[in-house]
C-alpha cells in the first residue's frame, strides 16, 4: 500500500508538471485517524498530500464528471471507479480522452470506525481496474463470491416479511439524496425529484414517498448500475440500497442476459433494447 502511495504521488506530480493533466483526483488524509477524503490536486508540489491506504472509501468516478471542462483530469481508479468511468462513457457523459486513468488494484477498503472491510468491498468482484492508462501496483486475484447472496435470502422470504423489511428501510430514509449524488450512473441533467412543476416526487417524508423515490431510482439506474456500492456507503442512515439494485441486475441478467455494466465502454443496455424472442409472460 505504501508503495502504491509513493508511486501515486510521483506519478501525480509528473503528470501535473508535464502539463499532461490539469488535476489529479484521488484521496487525502482527513481530520481523524484512518480517515480520507476526496482530493483534487492541481499543483505538482501538492501531490505529496495524496494518500492511498485501506481507508480510501470514496469512489472517484462521479468527481471526474463534476470536474469536466477543466481540461484533462487524472483520476485514480480501482475496479469500482473504473467501471463507473466506463459507464459514464457509455452514457455519453464523459469522453475517454478527457480522463487519464491511474489504475490501482484494490484489496478492499475498511470502515474507519469498526476496522472491518466495507460491505461494498466484501461484495465486490472487480478489484482490479477494468480500464486504465497506467497501473500502479500488482494485480490482485479476484475473489470468488456470490454477490446475490443477500438478494436470494430476501427472495426466499415471504411477501409480508419482505414488505416489513423494506418498509423499515424506507421508514428510515431521510431523502437527503446522497445516493443519487454519489452515483456514477445518476447523470440526468435534471432529476425527476427536482422537477417540481411536473410533481413526480411529493415533498412529504413518509414510507410511501420514500419508497416512490427509492424504487424509481433503482429502476432508473438498475440496468446500468456498476455495483460500486457507493450509494450504500454514502447513505447517512446506512440503508441497504444495493439489495434493490442487485435485484434488478440479477433479474435483468436472468431474463435478458444483460451481463454486468461498466466492464467496457461499449456497455450493456438491457432496457434500451429488445429481442422479439424475449420470454413472454403477459399473454
Amino acid at each position, binding site marked *: 500500500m505504501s508503495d502504491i502511495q509513493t508511486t501515486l504521488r510521483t506519478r501525480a506530480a509528473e503528470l501535473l508538471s508535464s502539463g499532461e493533466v490539469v488535476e489529479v483526483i484521488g484521496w487525502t488524509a482527513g481530520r481523524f485517524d484512518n480517515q480520507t477524503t476526496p482530493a483534487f490536486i492541481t499543483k505538482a508540489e501538492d501531490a505529496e498530500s495524496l494518500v492511498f491506504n485501506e481507508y480510501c472509501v470514496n469512489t472517484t468516478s462521479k468527481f471526474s464528471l463534476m470536474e469536466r471542462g477543466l481540461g484533462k483530469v487524472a483520476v485514480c481508479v480501482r475496479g469500482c471507479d473504473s467501471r463507473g468511468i466506463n459507464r459514464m462513457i457509455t452514457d455519453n457523459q464523459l469522453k475517454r480522452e478527457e480522463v487519464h486513468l491511474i489504475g490501482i488494484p484494490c484489496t478492499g477498503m475498511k470502515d474507519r470506525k469498526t476496522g472491518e472491510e466495507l460491505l461494498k468491498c466484501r461484495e465486490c468482484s472487480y478489484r482490479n481496474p477494468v480500464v486504465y492508462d497506467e497501473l500502479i501496483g500488482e494485480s490482485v486475484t479476484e475473489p470468488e463470491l456470490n454477490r446475490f447472496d443477500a438478494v436470494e435470502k*430476501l*427472495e426466499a422470504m415471504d*411477501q*409480508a416479511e*419482505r*414488505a*416489513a*423489511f*423494506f*418498509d423499515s428501510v424506507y421508514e428510515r430514509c431521510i431523502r437527503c439524496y446522497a445516493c443519487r449524488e454519489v452515483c456514477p450512473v445518476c447523470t440526468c441533467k435534471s432529476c*425527476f425529484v427536482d422537477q417540481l412543476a411536473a410533481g*413526480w416526487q*411529493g415533498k*412529504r417524508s*413518509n*414510507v*410511501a*414517498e420514500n*419508497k*416512490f423515490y427509492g*424504487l*424509481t431510482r*433503482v*429502476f432508473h439506474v*438498475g*440496468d446500468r448500475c456498476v455495483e460500486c456500492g457507493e450509494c450504500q456507503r454514502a447513505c447517512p442512515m446506512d440503508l441497504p440500497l444495493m439489495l*434493490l439494485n442487485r*435485484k*434488478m441486475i440479477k*433479474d*435483468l441478467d436472468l*431474463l*435478458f442476459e444483460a451481463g454486468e455494466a461498466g466492464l467496457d465502454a461499449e456497455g450493456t443496455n*438491457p*432496457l*434500451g433494447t*429488445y*429481442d*422479439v424472442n*424475449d*420470454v*413472454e*409472460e*403477459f*399473454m
Partner: protein
Amino acid sequence: MSVVNDSQAVGTKDGTGEFEPTILAFACHWCTYSGADLAGLNRMNYPANVRLLRVPCSGRVNPQYVISAFNKGCDGVLVCGCHPGDCHYVSGNYFAKRRLMAFKRLLEYSGMEPGRFQVRWISGSEAGKFRDTVIQVCADIKNLGPLQDREADALASISVADLQKGAEAAGASASSESAVAQAATANGNAEKAGE
C-alpha cells in the same frame, strides 16, 4: 345516467360491507382501448371497479405511474397493450415488456403482493379477453383486499368518507372525473354495474 357508482368506485375501506377495489387500467389506444370499446358495443358486463386510462402505447407507461397509482389510492394496476409484433409504433410494447417484467419483479421483491400489478396483451378484437381480464384482475384484487400503504396520500386517512360526501354533493355530474368517466362511458360501462 350515473357513470360511475361512486360508493362502489371509491371502495369501502372502513370494514363495512364488501370491499370494492379501485383498479387503474392503462390501455393502449390502438388495441386494448378499442377492445374495451368493442366490449361496450357488445354489451359485455364487467366490474366498474376498473378505471381505464388511455395511453398511446403500453411503452408510454412509466413505472412511476404505477407506484403513483398505488400511492394515490388504487388497489390494483393493470397495464394492457398490443400483442408483441402488433405495436402501432413497431416496437413500443417490446420495450414495455422488458421494462414491466423487471419492474413487476422489483415491485414484488419490495413487498407488493403478486397480482396487484398485472400486465396483459389485448388486441382490438379481443373484447371477450378484455372483459375476462378485468373480471379476473378484479377478483384477484378483491381477494388481496385493500392496499394498506396509503401514507403518501396524506388525505387518504381523512378523505374516504369526505370524498364520498363530496361526490354525492356533486351528483351525477361526472365533470370532475372526466378522464375516468369518459373512458367508462365509451366502454358501455354504465350499466348499473354496482347493482
